[in-house]
């Protein structure tokens, strides 16, 4: 096409395409609007909508699965083991709760709304709701605390748990001490000196010595009890026999005698 023809064609195209566009926009002046006026009209979200998190603490068993699954580490959980005497109840899915959940914080400002915490929960207690209007003016208010125990109760729980630990530790220590004592007593009762002694410690000593030395449990314990008045290994210093098994094995002939 010559330049002159292109010139006129461009002018014609310019005007005609502008008019086509104008006709289209004019028609759109009369189509209804597709927007909704938000605060007055709120659209209903579908049921799978992933917005603010919600945790049902009654069902939480403190397994840490959601904490591990979160890619941005916005969930912080702390648990305390419950005492055997305490009954925390069952979850709605039939599991017995064994842990006190003393801290369950979700920093909803950090949350990336990926939903990865929802899938691993064994009791389905963490869910994404359809709430999306939760803006706050203070940033600290965006750290949600979900625990249902009050801070005072948390202190109590921790104190009780600490006490229980202490008692259990003490019992264990006492048991260990007694075991050591029995061990020493069993070693002392080895010489066959038939010095009568108080029956109780004698009865007790082989009894405690027996579990201390697994080598001669049956012989030592069964035999030692009826022979308690006769053989008192505890007071007499066992010179020749160092090991209770030796004393135990030599015991029957002595006792019979």
């Amino acid at each position, binding site marked *: 096409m010559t330049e002159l023809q292109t010139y006129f064609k461009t*002018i014609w195209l310019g005007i005609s395409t*502008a008019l086509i*566009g*104008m006709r*289209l*926009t*004019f028609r*759109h*002046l*009369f*189509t*209804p*609007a*597709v*927007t909704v*006026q938000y605060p007055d009209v709120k659209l209903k979200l579908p049921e799978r909508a992933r917005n603010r998190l919600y945790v049902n603490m009654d069902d939480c068993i403190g397994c840490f699965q959601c904490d591990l699954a979160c890619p941005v580490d916005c969930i912080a959980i702390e648990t305390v083991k419950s005492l055997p005497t305490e009954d925390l109840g069952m979850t709605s899915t039939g599991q017995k709760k064994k842990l006190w959940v003393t801290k369950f914080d979700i920093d909803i400002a950090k949350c990336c709304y990926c939903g990865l915490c929802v899938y691993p929960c064994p009791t389905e207690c963490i869910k994404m709701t359809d709430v999306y209007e939760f803006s706050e003016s203070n940033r600290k208010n965006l750290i949600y605390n979900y625990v249902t125990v009050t801070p005072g109760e948390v202190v109590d729980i921790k104190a009780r748990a600490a006490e229980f630990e202490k008692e259990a530790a003490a019992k264990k220590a006492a048991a260990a001490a007694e075991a050591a004592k029995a061990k020493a007593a069993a070693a002392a009762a080895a010489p066959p000196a038939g010095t009568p002694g108080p029956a109780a410690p004698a009865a007790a000593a082989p009894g405690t010595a027996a579990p201390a030395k697994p080598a001669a449990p049956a012989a030592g314990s069964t035999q030692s009890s009826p022979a308690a008045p006769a053989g008192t290994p505890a007071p007499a210093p066992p010179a020749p026999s160092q090991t209770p098994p030796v004393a135990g094995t030599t015991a029957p002939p002595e006792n019979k005698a």
Partner: protein
Amino acid sequence: MEDIIKNALEAIPVLGHSLANLLGTPPGVYVVMAALPLVFILLYALVTLYMEMKVSAHIQDRLAYMYTGWHGVLQPVADILKLIQKEDTIPAAADKPLFILAPYLVFIGTYAGFAAIPFSSMYVGSDLNIGVLYIIAVSSIVVVGILMSGWASNNKWSLFGAMRSAAQLVSYEIPSALAILVAVMITGSMNLQEINHFQDGGIQNWLAFGGPLPIAKKLLLMPFTLTTFFILFVASLAEVNRTPFDLPEAESELVQGFNTEYSGMKFAIFYMAEYANMFLVSGVAATLFLGGWGSPFGSFMSGPVWGVFWFVLKGMFFVFLQVWLRWTLPRLRVDQLMYVSWKVMMPFLFVCILAVGMILSF
């Protein structure tokens, strides 16, 4: 004490009489007649703001203002109030006197043009014999204002916008002037009121359709006058910096062009000046080619008061066209803008002038 009150009460009617005398005598009358377009501009700006927002919204399948008043009718008032009470920032390194003066210059350039347009057969600000020449001349003050604002903002982007705008306005003055020349040739006068009277008598007498001439000449003239009318409209789009010629305030490139650093009242003045300019050029196009305040039905619905109605209606029709085009077309680049002005409009206008001159001389 009672004496003072009695004296004051007696003074009011005396003051009232003197005021009426003052306003009735020539200087007072002129003040009133000069203030009327200002009142009109203020009211018209509110209406056009609302219209622009609503038209753009409905074209884009959405609703615009819905809260303030029924369907947001009071929103423009709220917008103006907001602009008035906003903080007026001046950049630290800006050229302060120029920065402050620029918006007012732009407004003066457009407002002065209102003096020559006849709103009705009984009201024209100033019945100049060289009305159209005066309008073309005075609306060039806008260029000075825009250049000042671009330079004084101390902002490279504003400078760009201002330079582009200066080039654009200056080059589109010429097609406007030539198109106006065609109308002047047919009517034989530059006085806008006379041009209006020339087209009196109904739609067939409008210059766009050839004017009140014998039917043969009319039919010969009609294609040329229609073309000229169309070109005048497009050139006036460029005069007011509206899409598709809104490169000086191209939002996507220059943030806001020469307006970037302005906020608050100065920005409001710029805005008002743009809307006033829109009506000015629409009014000129309506007066010259569409019969101004003349009724399209001849003597039915005509008269001094009806004249205002018809004039404002035609002006608003053009303003609506400008708004409609803004939301439809993309914008032209600067060199394409220049191309359209110098290489498309001017040749066509020269041909029109030649043809009109030849037809009229027979």
